[in-house]
């Protein structure tokens, strides 16, 4: 399941506050971030990825293109999604979050989502907290996004979301599908009686699918350490430790 990044323009955050912002004492607890897609027409949104920075609750509203004659309207797709279970403490405060549109995905896919790495971060591969959540609306024909961030705790100086990236469904890449013979045995080769003691072939094929997913995952995470050997060609004469 591939995805394609959609170029977006993230507007600066707008704080919502009651009264005069210059004279009031407290810090705003609600921020709004508008995201527009100037170079792309209405598209089907598949995934929203961002790095949280002390936002406690997130709501997302979407402006969808309906038809030529009715004006586009705003629909709430996520309401008060909790990013920080305790707004006063650090838990969840700086997590990478991926919001994936639930589209009748099976449990198997949930497994592979959880281990997918977020590439392209300057800190290198990062583990992503994936939230496969029920978006309340259909994410087709998206024109604009509005993220409403809430942080009720007075302990934090600021809060926002960073590194916002939007993805739409990419074309199905053939390399990601299983070889045909693995999932669809040729009908004429089906064994007629199931031999005693042998497992059911369809069960085995699904187990192999899961093993395949795991090996892909392991292969994707490179380890640069050589197993067992710590020396270089038998030599371990060292001078000083390096600070970099």
């Amino acid at each position, binding site marked *: 399941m591939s995805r394609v990044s959609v170029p977006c323009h993230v507007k600066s955050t707008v704080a919502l506050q009651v009264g005069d912002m210059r004279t009031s004492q407290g810090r705003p607890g609600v921020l709004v971030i508008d995201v527009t897609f100037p170079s792309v027409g209405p598209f089907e949104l598949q995934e929203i990825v961002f790095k949280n920075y002390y936002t406690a609750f997130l709501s997302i509203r979407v402006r969808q293109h309906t038809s030529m004659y009715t004006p586009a309207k705003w629909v709430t797709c996520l309401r008060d999604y909790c990013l920080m279970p305790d707004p006063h403490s650090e838990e969840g405060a700086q997590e990478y979050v991926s919001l994936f549109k639930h589209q009748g995905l099976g449990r198997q896919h949930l497994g592979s989502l959880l281990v997918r790495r977020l590439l392209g971060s300057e800190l290198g591969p990062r583990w992503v907290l994936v939230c496969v959540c029920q978006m309340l609306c259909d994410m087709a024909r998206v024109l604009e996004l509005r993220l409403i961030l809430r942080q009720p705790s007075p302990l934090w100086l600021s809060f926002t979301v960073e590194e916002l990236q939007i993805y739409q469904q990419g074309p199905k890449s053939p390399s990601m599908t299983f070889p045909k013979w693995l999932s669809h045995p040729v009908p004429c080769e089906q064994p007629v009686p199931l031999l005693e003691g042998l497992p059911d072939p369809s069960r085995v094929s699904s187990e192999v699918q899961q093993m395949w997913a795991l090996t892909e995952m392991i292969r994707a995470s490179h380890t640069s350490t050589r197993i067992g050997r710590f020396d270089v060609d038998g030599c371990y004469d060292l001078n*000083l430790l390096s600070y970099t």
Partner: protein
Amino acid sequence: MLQEESDLSLVIAQIVQKLKGSHLYAQLERQAWGSWEKRILKSLNSMCTELSIPLARKRPVGEQKELLNKWNEMGTDEPDLSLFRPVYAPKDFLEVLINLRNPNYENGDSLSFRTHLGLIQVPLKVKDIPELKEFFVELGLTTGQLGIDDSTQVPPELFENEHVRIGQKVLAEQDSAAAQQYVRQGSPTALRAELWALILNISSQPEDILYYEQLKTNVIQHDLLVDSLIYKDVKLTASNDDYYFVFEDYLYQVLLCFSRDTSVLGHFAYNSASPPKSYIRGKLGLEEYAVFYPPNGVIPFHGFSMYVAPLCFLYHEPSKLYQIFREMYVRFFFRLHSISSHPSGIVSLCLLFETLLQTYLPQLFYHLREIGAQPLRISFKWMVRAFSGYLATDQLLLLWDRILGYNSLEILAVLAAAVFAFRAVNLMEVTSLAAAEAVLADLSTLKVMPLLQIFLFATVT
């Protein structure tokens, strides 16, 4: 179908859980840890240059033969270690933790509902007593415990016999999850070694013994500066301890091999620290000649050998002892000397300890703070060493049973608070940090399970 799916999900959930909270937050916190790591490297480098000893060198053949001959009695060696000093001690590490600050956190002068009166100023989520009661439900007053219900006054038919019978059954079934659940109520002495091996998934296969022998060969072939640090640490700590001095030779055999074990590098995937790097002599800057130093990436600090010493009571075969220690290190002990926001990390344990004391013994906390004896300054060394060397060994092993059973180090913070609660009356009368330290200097007579039970389940809040 569903079983495999849920197994896979379980494995992945465990991986996510392990990685969650293992990152360091915020630029400044990362900088604090980075500058601490740099300090350690500088200290090691300056020791190298001052003493004109290389970080690592290949032993000449004669020296190799000699070491091989006295492998089982390295303790009889009395090298001159006076010029070596430990790279750091727990109290240095405490200073780093005290200075951890979150730049996004309101650290104003005015008191607010979340002002931290203790030393740790990082707002991590820690459990309170109701949550701890739920988490440690098997330690409750109505559940039998080894450490309480096996005392001489209690007839063994009431609890002990049945508990031992269940333990033997668990071992017969070789059920690791059941063993983990079982040791929450303590492990009988006779079964403990096997139960811990079962929980940690250690089975002495021939390849494990071969691996250990390979590490031994590495020790014979290469001499590391870190070896001298290990020698010094063992001589200063374990050799001076009444309970552990007999195991001195075992400690060398385990720790010297541990330093050469590159498989330990794997734990840096979920540890926010990073292993120190060096280059082969003459090849500075060339990545193909970059190596980790020591090979396992862990620089021992003062008291490190105390992680191994209690295990010597359980395992007498060096390769098994080694495997058990290595597994316990990469699962638990590394969290005690590296910074992370994990609930079992040392920062969370310190905060849990201070919060428990502040909430449930406010008068004591306030009094100690007023006399300049912040409680964490006294209890930190207990927690960093997982109480090894402070408690009597049978009590320590009962404590470590629960660490394995609950897969969490939080019990260390709870025990530290329970000790303060136990000696509260004496502590209220002291007027200086030194006097407070004196009251809490000797923990060898304490019985941990009654203390924990009373603190969690029998204290009027």
